[in-house]
């Protein structure tokens, strides 16, 4: 019985979880690893909680795993940089990066479809380039539509910090996306 409920729950959140992880990592394998670790942790630690609690718990675990990934990546990048090597993860899967599949905004093709695709890629990239905390707050507040208190609780920060990070994230995104105005 619980297995069925768990399966249904995981199925309902897996796509969103992947997209959030992907927006942070810009790498499919890394994003899938994060989703896997998050699901396993939920099952191992919290599967006995009530179903209503799974959602907030999973969101918190997912954000925590993204933070862990970010830290690991930062350390790795630092070491590679110090050794004078190029960090493999800096490549961000060129083939997988859809941004390169679309023309830039300077393209002369006046297609609404292309403009939309370009905007989509622009927003995705702009979100992924935000500092981690701003990115997390932006995703929770604007994509997951958590309120300030829920976001603060999920990330373990104050409500004031949530407001500040969200305002800064929106400001940066607006600046980066000015070309779509």
């Amino acid at each position, binding site marked *: 019985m619980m297995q069925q409920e*768990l399966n249904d729950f995981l199925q309902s959140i897996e*796509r969103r979880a992947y997209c959030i992880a992907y927006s942070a990592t810009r790498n499919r394998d890394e994003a*899938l690893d994060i989703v896997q670790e998050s699901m396993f942790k939920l099952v*191992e630690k919290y599967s006995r909680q009530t179903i209503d609690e799974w959602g907030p718990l999973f969101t918190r675990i997912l954000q925590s795993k993204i933070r862990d990934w970010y830290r690991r990546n930062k350390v790795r990048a630092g070491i590679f940089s110090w050794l004078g090597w190029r960090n493999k993860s800096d490549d961000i899967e060129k083939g997988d990066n859809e941004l390169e599949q679309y023309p830039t905004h300077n393209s002369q093709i006046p297609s609404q479809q292309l403009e939309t695709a370009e905007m989509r890629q622009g*927003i995705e990239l702009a979100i992924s380039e935000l500092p981690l905390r701003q990115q997390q707050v932006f995703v929770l507040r604007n994509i997951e539509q958590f309120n300030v208190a829920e976001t603060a609780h999920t990330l373990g920060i104050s409500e004031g910090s949530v407001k500040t990070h969200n305002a800064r994230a*929106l400001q940066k*995104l*607006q600046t980066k996306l000015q070309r*779509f105005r």
Partner: protein
Amino acid sequence: MIMRDENDVGKKSREIFQRKEDSLDQETLKRLESIRHQAVSLADKKQYSWIANLHLERMGEILFNPQGSVRTGSMLTAITAMLLLVIIIVNYQFTSMLPVDDLMILTSGEDLELIEDLDFYDWLLEVDNNG
């Protein structure tokens, strides 16, 4: 769509995420499904161990706290305390089984010669009675 203010950024981002979710490629979807199945099978294993723990916990509840639940940790503490109590009781009973007279002799500060004399008088009285 043209983004005019911050609300537009948030709204547009939401739309993009939703569209991305709906248009994930087959390989990614298969891998997500596989991850989900692994997680659910992990839950199966967890449930078996959980059932075993539940029995232990229930036993603890019945023994030590019929009103409420007893967590495994506190149950172990209670079992340890109970074992100690049993050891103390058994030890006490074993000690109490020693002959009282001998114990009194060993613990009293009386002169042993006097006690030996008392034994002699006891023996003498017994001989007289028999004689």
